[in-house]
């Protein structure tokens, strides 16, 4: 069977599974719609959280990113996994005990203030929209590369599928489709990795394989460092970024991960506090399978790529080079007219430009794996993008129907009315996300860092202080969130979009990049919150009782139905 047939077949099978699950798990109440009825098992929630978390970027781009920046890319590996330790230890159990539907719910109730709630809704919307646009784009890209459908139609197909199960099933539908999507995406990620690991090192476990010797008896990493040295690149295993910046970026990604609303809400769906802890453990376990394999794929792909193209005659390159040249992701420009590919670090002499996304998408072709494996990667990429998109859309619709309309604008809305509003907001959110997927604004790539920075600068301090500092009051929390967020926005706009006078690397404060600035903004938030809280009146007694109460696991069931 040819590649197109395989791809259509696998996509048809996986999509019918998702739709089948959506019909089976329709949401009947707002509780079903927002938190899947609150009875999801820790294992299922762990799987769903993993799929929710691992986006098109994790699946398609991350291994490529590591491949091209070596040690420097460790920030993503540690940042996007270490955040789960914070989530499991500092947030998930207490938020589950608190037991409501959304993050703004917690902020609004804990700080007894609709101003705090509005700030939280605003942050949740910005963070989620930034993120979701990238996912829809990912869906479009996979369709266009593997099925020769144009990006617009690809995005539209993706929108219809997500619309179907997010609108019909709400959190309940999303949770169980995400379980299926995790299985699809991890299978699709691991199969090529295992094949290639056996090919290159004889070891079927990629995590061990990339620290082993290749067929020539040289350690793979040493060989890669050697190749990099020859071609003028920085050594693969040591980085070029400053250690301070690596430190700050890692911290911002970790804290941002723990503060992302679409991840936090997943812990509202389990039955009790101990289940929230357990499902955080499962989630990180399932995530770590992909995250520890990605650096291995990066090394295999990088070594393969250099050995295949460097100093080879252009006419004799394998077929996949031509295929990917057609997509524009690979470019060869024979600068010295010798018909030989010079792949070098020096931009003046380098003749080959390689997009990082190729590393995962073309990896099976580079390693000459069978067609069904290549098709599997397409289905996996779609599963990763759709699962994350659905989780984000749910946060957006809940923010509008629950936090804005039910809690602030029209509290008398009936249960049925709220459910209808939630579904309409989901439809509106999919439409906006689809629009951004088809017409991606230039700032999308730059704003992923913004999403993490904002989550780190706003939610993380407000939530942790709300749990661990009983004295924390609304004045402190609101001031901290607003100042942290404004500071982060200012820094991003100045150094990413050239507003407020712009600036270059030399102008960075303490040499910290905008990606790492979330950590600074977080500390400022903590400082401002604590200072103002201790200068203003104590929170009311019932709030202090509430804090006492969320620290104790028992009684989460009752807390739920208040």
């Amino acid at each position: 069977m040819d590649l197109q047939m395989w791809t259509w077949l696998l996509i048809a099978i996986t999509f019918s599974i998702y739709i089948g699950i959506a019909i089976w798990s329709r949401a009947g109440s707002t509780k079903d719609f927002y938190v899947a009825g609150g009875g999801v098992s820790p294992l299922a929630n762990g799987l769903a959280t993993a799929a929710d978390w691992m986006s098109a970027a994790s699946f398609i781009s991350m291994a490529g990113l590591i491949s091209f920046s070596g040690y420097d890319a460790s920030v993503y590996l540690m940042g996007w996994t270490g955040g789960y330790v914070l989530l499991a230890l500092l947030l998930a159990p207490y938020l589950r005990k608190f037991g409501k539907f959304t993050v703004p719910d917690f902020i609004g109730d804990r700080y007894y203030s609709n101003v705090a709630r509005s700030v939280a809704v605003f942050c949740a919307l910005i963070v989620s929209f930034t993120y979701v646009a990238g996912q829809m784009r990912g869906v479009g890209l996979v369709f266009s590369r593997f099925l020769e459908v144009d990006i617009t139609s690809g995005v539209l197909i993706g929108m219809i599928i997500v619309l179907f199960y997010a609108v019909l099933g709400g959190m309940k539908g999303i949770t169980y489709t995400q379980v299926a999507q995790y299985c699809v995406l991890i299978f699709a990620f691991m199969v090529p990795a295992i094949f290639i690991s056996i090919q290159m090192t004889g070891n079927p476990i990629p995590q061990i394989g990339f620290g082993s010797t290749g067929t020539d008896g040289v350690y793979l990493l040493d060989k890669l460092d050697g190749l990099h040295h020859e071609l003028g690149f920085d050594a693969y295993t040591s980085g070029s970024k400053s250690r301070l910046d690596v430190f700050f970026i890692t911290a911002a990604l970790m804290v941002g991960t723990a503060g992302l609303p679409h991840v936090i809400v997943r812990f509202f769906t389990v039955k009790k506090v101990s289940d929230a802890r357990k499902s955080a453990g499962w989630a990180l376990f399932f995530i770590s399978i992909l995250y520890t394999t990605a650096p291995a794929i990066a090394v295999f792909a990088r070594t393969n790529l250099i050995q295949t193209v460097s100093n080879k005659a252009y006419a004799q390159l394998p077929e996949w080079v031509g295929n990917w040249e057609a997509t524009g992701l690979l470019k060869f420009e024979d600068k010295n007219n010798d018909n030989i590919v010079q792949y070098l670090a020096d931009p003046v002499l380098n003749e080959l430009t390689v997009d990082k996304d190729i590393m995962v998408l073309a990896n099976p072709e580079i390693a000459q794996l069978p067609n069904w494996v290549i098709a599997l990667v397409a289905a996996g990429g779609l599963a990763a993008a759709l699962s994350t998109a659905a989780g984000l859309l749910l946060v957006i619709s809940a923010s509008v129907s629950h936090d804005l309309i039910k809690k602030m604008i029209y509290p008398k809305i009936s249960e049925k009315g709220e459910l209808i509003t939630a579904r309409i907001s989901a439809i509106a959110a999919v439409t906006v996300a689809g629009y951004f997927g088809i017409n991606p604004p230039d700032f999308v790539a730059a704003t992923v860092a913004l999403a993490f920075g904002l989550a780190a600068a706003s939610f993380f301090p407000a939530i942790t202080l709300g749990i661990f500092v009983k004295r924390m009051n609304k004045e402190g929390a609101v001031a901290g969130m607003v100042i942290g967020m404004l500071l982060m926005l200012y820094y991003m706009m100045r150094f990413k979009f050239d507003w407020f006078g712009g600036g270059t690397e030399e102008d960075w404060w303490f040499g910290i990049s905008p990606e790492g600035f979330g950590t600074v903004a977080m500390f400022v938030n903590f400082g401002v919150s604590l200072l103002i809280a201790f200068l203003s009146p104590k929170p009311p007694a019932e709030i202090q009782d509430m804090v006492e109460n969320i620290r104790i696991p028992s009684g989460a069931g009752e807390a739920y139905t208040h």
Partner: protein
Amino acid sequence: MPEKDLKRYWRTNLSYLAILLSVWFLVSFLCGIVWVEELNTIRWGGFKLGFWFAQQGSIYVFVIIILIYIRLMNRLDQKYNVNE
């Protein structure tokens, strides 16, 4: 639960957090970033140790930290009879 027990329960929880988060900081920020070059002089098979911590080891330890936390807290909940 009496006030005194509640305080003791919370204080034990905080001390667990302090210990586990120190390990979290040690394997990622110290072994993977601050001491990376020093650790890179030590080899472990094909891996330089600092590089291994940054791209593999820290992630394994994160999973273990959460597992230990789950066990500790389940036992603590049982001791103070606040489990469900």
